[in-house]
């Protein structure tokens, strides 16, 4: 690691590739269904004729741009453009609804850049030691991590716990459809061979989040998003001030994102959810998460962009992909003849370090491009009349769903789930618990089954589930975030009571 590598990364070609990658990634990521994995996979053949370091910079830039781009549709359309942006919808869409969409897009950009830089810094400085985290996480730890993620259902559905749990259970049930990932059983297909593929998560996300928004758009005469009349100044500075005020949240969420990114079994969606949950738990009094709280967006966006750098740690150090896009990049590296592993950092380090500096550059470039594209996206969504917006978004949902695995039946499932989701929302069932169940259910199931087999083989089932230090820590955090809201509300009641007494 020296300045030679920085200079290598700063060649005109590499800068151009980083800029192109970030812009293309941001646009692709903002379209629901077109994920970071796909963006990277499509571009892999192009990189075969490039220098390995340049190829990596291009792929890394697209990846990081796509993770940020997912925030646009999450904020402006309540539809996460990539699964990583699920928790961005919680506060982003309420902000956009009340007319603060431009501010939300700006703070998402600041948070993404901050998270991306911290993740990349971890990759640059601490990669070999941090890679051991990936190995310390066994099946049980994944089980408890997903239970921790599921505990967010409780705090997401305040005052509506039963409906939230029912939604989560429905999501888990949906995740069982098709060929079970590790037991190879075929479940809940009702004899239909089209259901063997199961329910695609991204397609389900599009259906559950986007279709209800589209139905609401056509069923109400108001504008899609509230908009202040009169040309308002761009709210970049206001956003920067908010981001600076929340620097502790940004730092904590970025660290969470980096660590979760290192875990091969959990990606940006889990990172965003865990960071959101922690931000919510440590909220200052007066912060209303879920109703348009900027800290909610920042937690998610910082965390999911930090997974980019974090995910590259096991990918480059251990040859184990940290996230799905990393798996594709790893394949591209193999075809290029680059062997990953500890030796890549020691011996042939120049490729790695040139790439890491390239990732830094791409992340920094995301600041101006992200703010500009974000402003454009906001303006477009706000000014386009509904008669054009609705069919355009509807078209995108269909294209996006089809593109995931070239499947017509996924579109049918997407529309079906969307309709069901809309009906359920009329009865007070939110989409997010269903999605949490759908994403975390399989991780929990796999962890449970594997831990059970290993525990039984070693004759120590209780020790397997409750005897490992990392597991115990995660269990403690889960209990804390479950009990904390209750304590908090009791404390608030008590202080209210004492105030009332004092007033008497």
């Amino acid at each position, binding site marked *: 690691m020296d300045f030679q590598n920085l200079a290598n990364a700063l060649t005109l070609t590499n800068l151009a590739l980083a800029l192109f990658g970030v812009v293309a990634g941001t646009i692709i990521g903002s379209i629901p269904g077109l994920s970071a994995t796909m963006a990277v996979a499509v571009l892999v053949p192009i990189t075969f004729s490039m220098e390995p370091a340049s190829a990596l910079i291009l792929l890394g830039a697209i990846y990081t741009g796509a993770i940020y781009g997912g925030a646009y549709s999450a904020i402006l359309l309540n539809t996460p453009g990539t699964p990583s942006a699920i928790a961005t919808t919680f506060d982003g869409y309420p902000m956009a609804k009340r007319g603060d969409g431009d501010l939300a897009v700006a703070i998402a950009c600041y948070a993404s850049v901050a998270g991306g830089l911290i993740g990349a810094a971890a990759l640059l400085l601490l990669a070999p030691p941090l890679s051991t985290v990936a190995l310390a996480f066994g099946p049980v730890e994944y089980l408890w991590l997903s239970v921790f993620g599921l505990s967010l259902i409780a705090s997401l559905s305040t005052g509506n716990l039963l409906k939230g749990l029912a939604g989560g259970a429905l999501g888990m049930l949906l995740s069982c459809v098709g060929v079970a990932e590790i037991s190879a059983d075929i479940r809940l297909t009702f004899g239909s061979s089209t259901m063997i593929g199961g329910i695609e998560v991204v397609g389900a996300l599009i259906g559950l989040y986007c279709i209800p928004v589209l139905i609401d758009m056509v069923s109400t005469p108001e504008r899609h998003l509230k908009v202040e009349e009169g040309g308002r100044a761009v709210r970049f500075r206001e956003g920067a001030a908010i981001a600076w005020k929340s620097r502790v949240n940004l730092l904590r969420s970025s660290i969470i994102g980096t660590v979760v990114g290192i875990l091969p079994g959990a990606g940006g969606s889990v990172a965003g959810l865990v960071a959101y949950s922690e931000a919510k738990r440590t909220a200052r009094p007066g912060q209303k998460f879920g109703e348009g709280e900027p800290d909610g967006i920042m937690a998610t966006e910082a965390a999911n962009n930090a997974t980019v750098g974090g995910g590259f740690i096991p990918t480059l150090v251990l040859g184990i*992909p940290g996230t799905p896009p990393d798996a594709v990049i790893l394949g591209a590296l193999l075809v290029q003849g680059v062997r990953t592993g500890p030796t890549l950092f020691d011996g042939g380090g120049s490729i790695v370090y040139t790439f890491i500096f390239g990732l830094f550059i791409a992340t920094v470039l995301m600041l101006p491009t992200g703010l500009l594209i974000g402003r454009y996206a906001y303006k477009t969504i706000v000014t386009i009349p509904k008669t054009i917006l609705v069919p355009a978004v509807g078209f995108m949902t269909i294209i996006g769903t089809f593109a995931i695995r070239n499947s017509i039946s996924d579109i049918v499932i997407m529309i079906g789930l969307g309709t069901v989701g809309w009906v359920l929302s009329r009865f007070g069932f939110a989409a997010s618990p269903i999605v949490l169940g759908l994403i975390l259910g399989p991780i929990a199931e796999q962890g449970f089954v594997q831990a059970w087999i290993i525990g039984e083989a070693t004759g120590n089932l209780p020790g397997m589930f409750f005897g490992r230090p990392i597991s115990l820590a995660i269990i403690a955090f889960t209990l804390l975030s479950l009990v904390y809201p209750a304590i908090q509300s009791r404390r608030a009641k008590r202080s209210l009571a004492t105030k009332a007494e004092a007033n008497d």
Partner: protein
Amino acid sequence: MFNLKFAKTLVVASAVSIAAATSALAFPDKAVEYIIPFGPGGESDISARFQQSFFKDKFGQDLVVSYKPGGGGAVGWAQLNSMATDGYTIMGTNLPHIVIQPAQKDVGYTTEDIRNFYMFHYTPDAIVVTADSPYQTLDDLIADAKANPGGVTMSGSGKATANHLAQIRFDKMAGIKTAYVPFKGTGASSTAMLGKQVKAQWGYTTVGAAQGDAVRLLAVAMEERHPLFPDVPTFKELGYEMVGGAYRGMAVPKDTPEEIVKRLSDMFGEINADEAFRKQMLDGGFALLDVDAAGMEAFMAARKAEYLEAASEAGLLN
């Protein structure tokens, strides 16, 4: 004059012969779509990517890799026969998947529905342990398994897969009982082994190639030692009749004309014969295999018998 006439005949003759040659070689005159019925980043994807650039060099057309994941490959294979039969759509196929899946349940296709035209490589089964594992040799593992029946945990990719069938067959041959822990893909199963969540891994030679010094292979299921691991014995040398692994090939829709199938088979045979391609594959830990369209029937019959026997003994087909 004479010269001109001669030149004319020459031009005409060569034009005719070029036309004749191109009509025989007309295929492919546009890009060929190569559908991988899994997501990107796995062994099937990587080996297809290896073929991609050689295809373009040799035949001048693009080989476009696309993905149709779902149901462990079943979604793609169930749709194969409804696709265009002009040879411009081919699909990756995997063994033992296309034998075991339809034998277990109705997955929308049968093994005989899949018209494989070339099997180009396999990833040989291998037992992988960490570099600091107490198991120095295969005998160490067997001794431990005999001392602790059912106590030796071994990770592998999925259930009723190549790894799982290898575990079943080897347990029977060695007279031991190990605990097989299925993971989602080889990456996750390697992580579990490297993190010492399990004692050993039923993996492939590719794991050894990817992990280098971090792991030790105890034995590989090949006829002869893999050139990348000259010090690792084969199961055969150690007295166990185990040769095989996960085989990968390509198939076309059933009604594709015979001559196009033959041509595709020849084309991929040509890629397989390329020294540079062979070197890339071997360096990645893969083992090359050449089963063309003509030899496919016998090859499939042998594999099918082998897989079904192991699977039904283990009670996987109920």
